[in-house]
């Protein structure tokens, strides 16, 4: 079982869209996939038309792992399940801080629910917190969408520094460019600079700014389903193709 996270310290960078579309691609490739929505705004569940779970409150996720299993919903797409978010998640940081051994809790909870899955994708809330730290430890890869602007450069540096400080391996981080507007000089120059600075750590594939992605809120489906021939769908496909070899081996959907 492999766990990856989609994380950004800022909102509105295409994090949830990436989690949704990559989860769909992963399942379509034959991996039994669970998309966990840890973000209180609950957007990834919304895109799959899954209602938030009333069963799951904050303490249950971490004290009764079987509750996680009960809250899981099968999506309309083969091999893909969703763990919808719950508004109570916003209190996680406070709760976790009070708990001992909190770092391993998330891993345990996921393992209990994750016995069935080849791949778990965590859609993270846009902040640095104990939950985020838990996520960084549980995940083998952390996907970081980056809009190629100067501010994003700084944020990315801060994230790497945080990893260094807390003893997490930088190799886990998989930054990629998101919402790219290739006609903008700023974007092109920033991308060149970041590629030079981070080298092979940055993915080659990038997600363009796209109205198709914006329309996911109307379509309520992955772009690979609703707009399969779009540039957006092709771009997510390219990201997945680059990401897949970095993950552990898959097993076929039964």
């Amino acid at each position, binding site marked *: 079982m492999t766990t990856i996270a989609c994380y950004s310290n800022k909102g509105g960078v295409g994090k949830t869209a990436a989690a949704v579309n990559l989860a769909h691609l992963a399942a379509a490739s034959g991996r039994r996939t669970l998309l966990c929505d840890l973000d209180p705004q609950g957007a990834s569940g919304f895109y799959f*038309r*899954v209602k938030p779970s009333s069963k799951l409150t904050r303490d249950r996720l971490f004290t009764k792992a079987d509750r996680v299993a*009960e809250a899981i*919903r*099968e999506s*309309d797409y083969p091999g893909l*399940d969703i763990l919808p978010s719950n508004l109570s998640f916003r209190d996680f940081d406070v709760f976790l801080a009070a708990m001992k051994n909190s770092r391993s809790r998330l891993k345990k909870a996921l393992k209990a629910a994750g016995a069935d899955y080849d791949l778990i994708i965590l859609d993270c809330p846009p902040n640095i917190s104990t939950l985020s730290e838990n996520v960084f430890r549980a995940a083998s890869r952390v996907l970081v969408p980056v809009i190629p602007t100067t501010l994003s450069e700084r944020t990315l540096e801060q994230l790497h520094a945080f990893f260094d400080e807390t003893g997490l391996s930088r190799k886990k981080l998989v930054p990629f460019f998101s919402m790219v507007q290739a006609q903008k000089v700023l974007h092109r120059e920033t991308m060149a600079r970041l590629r030079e600075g981070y080298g092979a750590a940055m993915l080659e594939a990038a997600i363009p700014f796209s109205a198709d992605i914006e329309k996911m809120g109307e379509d*309520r489906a992955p772009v690979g389903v609703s707009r399969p021939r779009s540039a957006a769908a092709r771009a997510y496909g390219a990201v997945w193709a680059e990401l897949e070899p970095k993950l552990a081996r898959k097993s076929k959907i039964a």
Partner: protein
Amino acid sequence: MQAYIQGTTRLLAGPFDAGALAAALPGHRTVEDAADPPRPFRLLDSFDGAVRGADQALIESGGRWLVVTGAGAVLAAEVPKGARRLADLPEGPVRDALSQVSALRSFRTLAEGRMASRRIGIVDEEGKTVARLDLLALTAGGAEVTLMALRALRGYGAAFRALAAALPAAGGPGEITARLAPGLIDPKPQPVLPDDPTAADVAHAIIRAGLVTMRETEAGIVEDRDTEYLHDHRVALRRIRAVVGLFQGVWPEETRAELKAGFGALMARTGRLRDLDVYLLDRAAFFDLVPASLHPGLDLLFARFAKDRAAERRALARWLQSPDYAAARDGLAAHFNVPGGPPHGPEADTPALPYASALLWRRYRKTVTAAAAIGPETPDEEVHELRIHAKKLRYLLEAFAPVFGPKALRPLVKPLKALQEELGLFNDASVQRAALQAIPLGDGRKAGRDKAGRGKAGRGPGHGKDDLALAASLGALTAVLDQRQRSQRQRVEAGLAQFLAPEVRDSYSAQFRHKGA
């Protein structure tokens, strides 16, 4: 989309109606996920109904066979075109599920029609699918059944349960056959007896049932679907002839003689083909009996059997399709189509129970006398006679079993059956030995002769290389069968003691002695 459904299903008699679902889950609606265009299907079974006997249904369509089990599972397998028997199927769950079907029997078509599969999604107000329904609609001859498989989605258990409760279930796989192939004639019907039957009632019921089987097996023999049609045909004739031969006094002697001759003539036409079928079916066993060096000779022997068999089959098929056969068969059947049946003999109206008791006691006594007389010095002919007595006793026990009650005669049949098995093996060995000795050598159908009948390389008939190989193999086989017959004879003698035991005598005596009219 798959053209079949798998997993646990339930059956609906008739077409599917989405209205029931809408009522079960307010606010939800159905959407058509996928649909396959209708395609032809056939409903299959073996001649003896082994598939429906096992509470299953078997469907063939588009190169796939589907088994619907009594538990509601649908198993599927790709099957090569022209597959007719179990052995033609690939190994797997479908073949395993059909294991109760005899390997010798072919599958025949009970009904033909069209099947259409669809997948329906049940969605909530958000447009989220909460459950899926796979439907397989089978239509034949104006009737329709639908197989439904309701699929849960993880996390939507409540919806699944509500839907499952709302979907009716019409019954098991038997319902498929009943609706799509109504009016299916049972080819091996049980004799139907009235209350308080007379001797004539029993006789006529058995004969009528036998006539049905005879009739129903004709097409299968003519078309050479498998060897068991002929076997079933002969078993039916045998039962009829047993009644004619053993039920004394039921008809006037003139009628009885006519029936005996008539059915006997029909039976006589079938013997040779059955013998050849049995040889060919036992081929492997024969090869095991002689060393490998003699196998080429056996190959020749069996090649001849196969050729003879083909000729016999053609001849029998011609006969069965001839007006002479139809006239003979219908002439005999006509006796029993008249209300009341053929003319009544002196015992016709005797109540069956006392009639049977007297008949069975007499036959039992004869069998015991014959059995008790056998010792190591007794000639083989007497052992064969015992076999005949035992066979007649068995036929009577089976014929009258319904009259005495289904379980009453079982303890009597058991020791008799054991004796018959040993006698049967003895008889097989004798018959085979005699038959092999009768095979002519150098009869002009060998590779060692040219068209003018001269042996090749200047040799005379009967001395070609093939002839020698054949002769050697026949000789070896004969020797083995001879030995087998002798050792089997010893086993027969050992088995007699069991049949002659006092407990057996007491049980027969208690059932039949002094119970006659």
